[in-house]
């Protein structure tokens, strides 16, 4: 029992912390939002540190194998919790100015983080579902947290209804899998999911498809992405920043884990589906974003596209592929949070602005913000030597090594199309006449965060090996294979 509690310590910290903060918020006189915010950040930091302490431990399970902790889970949890913490930091000013500052917000984010931790460590279909629901329910609520705004409530409702549908699919798939394999545990499912005479049992594959649809919804992969633009646009910007970061990490983590461990024998089936999702996501992300005028909608399509690129590495279904996905997701989260730090700073005295044209001439009015945003855009477009380039490099290398040539070619073409809209933003900022729409100064915490993210993105190429090694180690846990990405990096650096 003690081991059980030790392993779920990060989630325990989050959950208990959330309840404690809830009490503080509910019973304190006056406005306690600030206190709760700071408390939430501290709790997230503590949880991240605790999760990080498992990084070098061997794989261990708890609760009859329902919960697993290994270096993959540790890394992903640290990233997720840190991303959530940053989202809370970034939200403070925005929420205060928008009169949305409520102590429930950080509490809900803490509970969502606990859910994400459960997802990442899930080793059982029920645990998976519980984690997803805990996370999703909190997300539905925060999407609609601006309850006086029609768009925000609509976003929350849409997200909820479609999320329920996806949960239904996931459950249907899970029940099929349970029905045909007799267990909800990933390891036992893998043992039961054996090809018969070289043919996979179709009913289980069917369950896999439904399960996959439910998971694809969480990472908004096409065609299960439809909620993303509406929710991203409708939700308050600070919530959107959170949506685009931590939940994507957690979703991708559980997606990787369940496919690599629970369905390793069904690789031929899910690999095709992942390839399909990757292609559709990359293409739609690239094309649909071009037509957007609202920068939050644009970021929605951008994140759809980036999920497609991450799925390229996923489709490789190799150790190199897994570590490339981890690396890609990490860099994606950094770039996204950096971008949103800038978007959150797009304010007039009358309120926030969201149109891309509002950025016109930003380089003259807000040179630092324009520079940060430009670096982020270049990086998102995958232009060397920004960090985003290396993310793409690794996923495409992994895909090519796995023989997925056409997928890689489509991916590169999609990233070319995608570069258009990223660079358009840079063009608007640097070449257009100043519109002076953004005339509020950048809040201090946002400029610090944006500066740090920009520096990371710019300088990643100088010393990428620590992160690459971590990703490799985490990927190796899932694949029980060598540290391929590190070799790739060595090779790449030697080539120069």
């Amino acid at each position, binding site marked *: 029992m003690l081991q059980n509690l030790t392993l779920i310590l990060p989630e325990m910290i989050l959950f208990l912390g959330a309840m404690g903060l809830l009490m503080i918020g509910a019973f304190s006189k006056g406005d306690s939002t600030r206190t709760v915010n700071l408390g939430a950040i501290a709790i997230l930091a503590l949880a991240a540190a605790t999760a990080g302490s498992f990084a070098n431990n061997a794989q261990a399970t*708890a*609760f009859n194998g329902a919960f697993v902790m290994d270096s993959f889970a540790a890394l992903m949890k640290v990233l997720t919790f840190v991303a959530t913490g940053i989202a809370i930091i970034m939200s403070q000013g925005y929420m205060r100015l928008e009169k949305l500052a409520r102590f429930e917000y950080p509490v809900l984010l803490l509970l969502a983080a606990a*859910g994400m931790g459960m997802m990442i460590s899930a080793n059982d279909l029920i645990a998976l579902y519980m984690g997803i629901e805990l996370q999703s329910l*909190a997300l539905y*609520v925060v999407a609609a947290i601006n*309850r006086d705004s029609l768009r925000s409530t609509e976003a929350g409702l849409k997200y909820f209804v479609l999320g329920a549908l996806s949960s239904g699919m996931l459950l249907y798939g899970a029940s099929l899998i349970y029905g*045909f394999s007799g267990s909800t545990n990933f390891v036992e499912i893998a043992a039961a999911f054996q090809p018969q005479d070289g043919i996979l049992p179709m009913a289980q594959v*069917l369950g896999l498809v439904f399960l996959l649809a439910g998971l694809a919804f969480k990472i908004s992969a096409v065609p299960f992405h439809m909620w993303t633009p509406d929710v991203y646009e409708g939700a308050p910007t600070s919530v959107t920043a959170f949506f685009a970061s931590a939940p994507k990490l957690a979703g991708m983590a559980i997606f990787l884990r369940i496919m690599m461990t629970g369905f390793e024998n069904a690789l031929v089936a899910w690999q095709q589906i992942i390839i399909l999702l990757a292609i559709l996501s990359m293409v739609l992300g690239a094309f649909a974003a071009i037509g957007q005028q609202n920068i939050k909608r644009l970021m929605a399509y951008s994140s759809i596209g980036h999920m497609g690129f991450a799925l390229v590495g996923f489709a490789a279904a190799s150790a190199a592929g897994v570590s490339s996905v981890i690396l890609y997701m990490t860099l994606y989260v950094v770039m996204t949070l950096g971008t949103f730090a800038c978007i959150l700073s797009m304010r007039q005295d009358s309120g926030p602005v969201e149109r891309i044209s509002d950025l016109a001439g930003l380089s003259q009015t807000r040179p630092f913000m324009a520079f940060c945003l430009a670096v982020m855009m270049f990086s998102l477009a995958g232009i060397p030597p920004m960090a985003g380039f290396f993310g793409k490099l690794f996923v495409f290398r992994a895909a090519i090594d796995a023989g997925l040539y056409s997928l890689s070619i489509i991916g590169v073409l999609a990233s070319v199309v995608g570069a258009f809209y990223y660079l358009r933003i840079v063009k608007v900022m640097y070449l257009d006449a100043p519109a002076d729409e953004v005339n509020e100064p950048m809040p201090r915490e946002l400029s610090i965060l944006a500066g740090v993210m920009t520096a990371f993105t710019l300088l990643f190429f100088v010393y990428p090996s620590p992160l690459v090694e971590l990703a490799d180690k985490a990927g190796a846990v899932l694949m029980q294979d060598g540290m391929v990405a590190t070799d790739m990096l060595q090779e790449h650096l030697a080539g120069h």
Partner: protein
Amino acid sequence: MTLTSLAFYLFATVAVASSFMVISSRNPVYSVLFLILTFFNAAGLFVLLGAEFLALILVVVYVGAVAVLFLFVVMMLDIDFAELSEGFLQYMPIGATVGLILLLELLLVFGASSTLIDTKPLPQATPDGMTNAEALGRVLYTDYIYFFQAAGAILLVAMIGAIVLTLVPSNNPKKQNIAAQTARTRDDAVETVDVEPGQGI
């Protein structure tokens, strides 16, 4: 065909048919009523499986509480559901086609997979010599503590969410102050006023 099978097919057919009616009936009140019927049939299926505790919980919680709550909400909200479902009919043909294709595929797959099910030993609903409730109770706080607590957390989130989204903090909350009530004396509440004749207060 045994009685059990007959009952299974009865409950299953009615459940499917009534759930179809939930989405197809024009009057939302009927929809909720069909939903209740669906729950009842599902409860019947639980009974057939030997999970009578779950069957009763389903009836008590879902029919007795949730569905009735739905019914109140539907009746209280003055929504023209006919208007909302117009689009539904418009997309009916294509939606039906896709649904039908999916259904056929599912049938095809399950038809082919039936042999596979037989090879597996069926799990037993209740260990021998134990009631339903006892069996659940034995595992709920031991083997399934993690899931149980997680479900609790989910409910907590749902509660917080409901409050966040609906509670309007009032400027003048009518709160009961017991100390103030008990400390109240006659002198606080009653005042004697001499009223001069011919003048108002």
